[in-house]
């Protein structure tokens, strides 16, 4: 017997996608409004830059993919934790820790890129385990501990790097000592290979295989959540803690494991970004935004690992476009516009209700006509 197709208005997946698209459109409209207010003369050009740059050249599209990879990891991290009922706002800290572990392996220990990535995961996992332990053993809200661990992580990494002379660029023939060494001079073997993708993308200097790695990871996470007993347990804990306790599921173990995995995902994101060989870690006094951007990525995707692939691509696309809006718009204003778009994009949940209602109304009207 074939299953009857569900009516359009009840298809949750379709409504989810529509809701995300609708909130993106509204975000773009408001973003455009902002551009008009800030600099009316350049607004059309600015908007064109924001929407067109990502596909204007293969090189820029390569950059979109390159930036999407770490975003995807942070989005997966937040989304995975969210599926299990935890709000991992500690992605920036785990991301920073992952970065640190990866760079130490690359520069200090001269290890190849794949071992560095493994180290990045371990670094993130270590930083994820603390909020998990506090939550499981003492019932301390993971939001509070992970925010604190964001700052602890950042300052700890800054402190350590500043006191590891071989890590700094100055030890490898450059003049600045406020950042880590460029991998091209310190250890070219730690740079993630391009795997021929650069040829595909018109010799783009950005692209490497990291986006493929992250897509594979996203699929693995999806399989774990959907197909395994472990995923079954994790989701049960997230959806109904009392019922999972009743079913004899070890909720404490699962909370800790969930945070460890989320941390490892963020950490891998950090490793992927900094092992691309294009950026150096700069000692700064603000928590890296990449981890926080994982939150809208996950929200936009409704925490679905496959959805995260697309939402990360979208946000990366907007960011690359935003960078091309200079000099007509200052970096700060483009950041604001991007923030508005992302912020509204995260209204997907609200939009879902609106769309469901619209469907229901239409159905009712049709019924009334009959």
């Amino acid at each position, binding site marked *: 017997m074939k299953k009857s197709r569900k009516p359009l208005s009840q298809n949750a997946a379709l409504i989810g996608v529509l809701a995300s698209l609708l909130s993106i459109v509204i975000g773009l409209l408001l973003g455009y409004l902002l551009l008009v207010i800030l600099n009316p003369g350049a607004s059309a050009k600015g908007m064109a830059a924001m929407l067109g740059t990502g596909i204007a050249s293969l090189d820029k599209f390569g950059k979109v993919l390159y930036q999407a990879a770490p975003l995807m990891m942070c989005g997966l991290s937040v989304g995975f934790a969210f599926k299990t009922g935890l709000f991992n706002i500690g992605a920036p800290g785990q991301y920073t820790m992952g970065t640190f572990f990866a760079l130490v392996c690359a520069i200090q220990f001269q290890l190849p890129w794949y071992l560095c990535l493994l180290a990045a995961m371990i670094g993130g996992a270590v930083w994820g385990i603390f909020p998990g332990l506090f939550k499981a053993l003492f019932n301390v809200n993971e939001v509070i501990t992970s925010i604190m661990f964001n700052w602890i992580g950042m300052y700890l990494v800054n402190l350590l790097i500043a006191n590891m002379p071989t890590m700094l660029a100055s030890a490898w023939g450059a003049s600045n000592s406020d950042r880590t060494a460029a991998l091209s001079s310190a250890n070219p073997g730690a740079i993630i290979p391009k795997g021929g993708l650069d040829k595909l993308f018109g010799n783009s200097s950005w692209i490497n295989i990291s986006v493929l790695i992250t897509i594979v990871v996203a699929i693995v996470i999806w399989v774990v959540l959907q197909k395994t007993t472990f995923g079954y347990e994790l989701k049960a804990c997230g959806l109904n803690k009392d019922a999972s306790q*009743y079913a004899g*599921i070890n909720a404490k173990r699962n909370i800790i494991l969930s945070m460890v995995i989320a941390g490892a995902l963020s950490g891998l994101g950090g490793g992927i970004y900094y092992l691309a060989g294009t950026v150096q870690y700069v000692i700064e006094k603000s928590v890296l935004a990449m981890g926080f951007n994982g939150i809208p990525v996950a929200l936009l995707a409704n925490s679905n690992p496959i959805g995260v692939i697309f939402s990360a691509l979208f946000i990366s696309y907007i960011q690359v476009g935003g960078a091309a809006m200079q000099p007509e718009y200052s970096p700060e204003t483009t950041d604001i516009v991007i923030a508005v778009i992302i912020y509204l994009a995260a209204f997907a949940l609200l939009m879902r209700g609106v769309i469901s209602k619209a469907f229901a109304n239409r159905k009712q009207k049709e019924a009334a006509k009959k």
Partner: protein
Amino acid sequence: MAEDFVIEMLHITKEFPGIKANDDITLQLRRGEIHALLGENGAGKSTLMSVLFGLYQPEKGVIKKDGKEVRIKDPNDANRLGIGMVHQHFKLVECFTVLDNIILGVEETRFGFLRKDEARKKVVALSEKYGLRVDPDALVEDISVGMQQRVEILKMLYRDNDILIFDEPTAVLTPQEIDELMEIMRGFKAEGKSILFITHKLNEIMAVADRCTVLRKGRCMGTVDIASTTKEELSRMMVGRDVSFAVEKKPAQPGEPILEVENLVVPSKVHKNDAVKGVSFQARAGEILCIAGIEGNGQSELVYGITGLEKVTGGHIRLCGQDITDAPIRERSKAGMSHIPEDRHKHGLVLDYTLGQNMILQRYWQPQFQNHGFIRKAEVEQYAEKLIRQYDVRSGQGVDTIARSMSGGNQQKAIIAREIDKEPQLLVAVQPTRGLDVGAIEYIHKQLVAERDAGRAVLLISLELDEVMNLSDRILVMYEGEIVGEFDPAKTTVQELGLYMAGGKKQGEAKA
């Protein structure tokens, strides 16, 4: 001459996405009558009353007060029309006194200061007039459930309401308190007040109501005069078929003790004292042992202790000779314990999981359902379908139905199917029929008796005395965390049990 209706709800239709909760229902309340509203769970009683109380707006239909059409947009409108309601779950401020609760919302003030003296006089006068014994200065959290209900009733009277809605008022009361409530309701009737009495207990309707409107699946099955009908007739109208009230069962043949509980102590979550104070008993194979008592006397905590949801601080629990006092829940489950929990939404189901996923909640880890950590989807579906067929669990989309979208009765059936199919040695069933309709109750009772006959020990915790008397082979009464008496259901009466449940008597003391 037209009849004297104080409230008329004519052709009310109220839809929710997917269901018509009320479909063209007409209910006419005469002045000075007790009008029962009878229906299974999900028949639309609560929706109808919410429409009358202004919580929902109907799509179709009109409400008339004294023959004039009125619009009730919110509970304040209802109050102005003299409509008051005692909700099933009381709406009282726990840390306020009785008096403060009664005047809350209609306080008299002078220069911004409360004037309670007159309010107190009025409350005392009302309470004497109708025999509603309350202590105006007691804190609500300290008084019994029965007194809390009287406070709710006084709240309506204080607001001079003359149309009183009682939503399942007897669910939380002892038999003695139920008799008292019936007296009070008759008193109101004599005063000319009109009462709407929502219930699914037929005995109470027969005892106190003048007329009864029966709802089934959102439709009105008619209004009948109680004087000219019978219990059987009413239940047929409600369920749509004949229902047997007596549980058919053979005499029990108790065997070996399955569950042994010794001096069990379980702490309370809400106060500092222990909720279970050194309880000992045995449940034997092939018997239904029932623990009766008024809600909140430690039965829930006793179950938490036995099933492992709560850590015990003293005593021993043995299941089939194996000490499980400190065993994790999974180990107890493996040792042969099944648990139909008190709160099916909190513990029994993951509401956002599908029915199929919920069916394996206790056994997803068994080799039958997983292969190297991967769930065997086909096996799960096949198994869930088998249970659904075998236990007649009804749902919109079979195994793929989200549990949340199912009716309470079918959710409960799903849990019972899952727990019984584990083939346990001990089945702990906590209020397995709470909030269910007659048809589902009959079914669940049969299942429990079948389990007993299959040689399992059934530990039943119930607040419904009818259920206790009908189903059990042995009764223990719990009061304030202790077992105060053991009874043979054939040799005791509801009244005697009620006395022990209310703390009026204790077996040990009588002997000593």
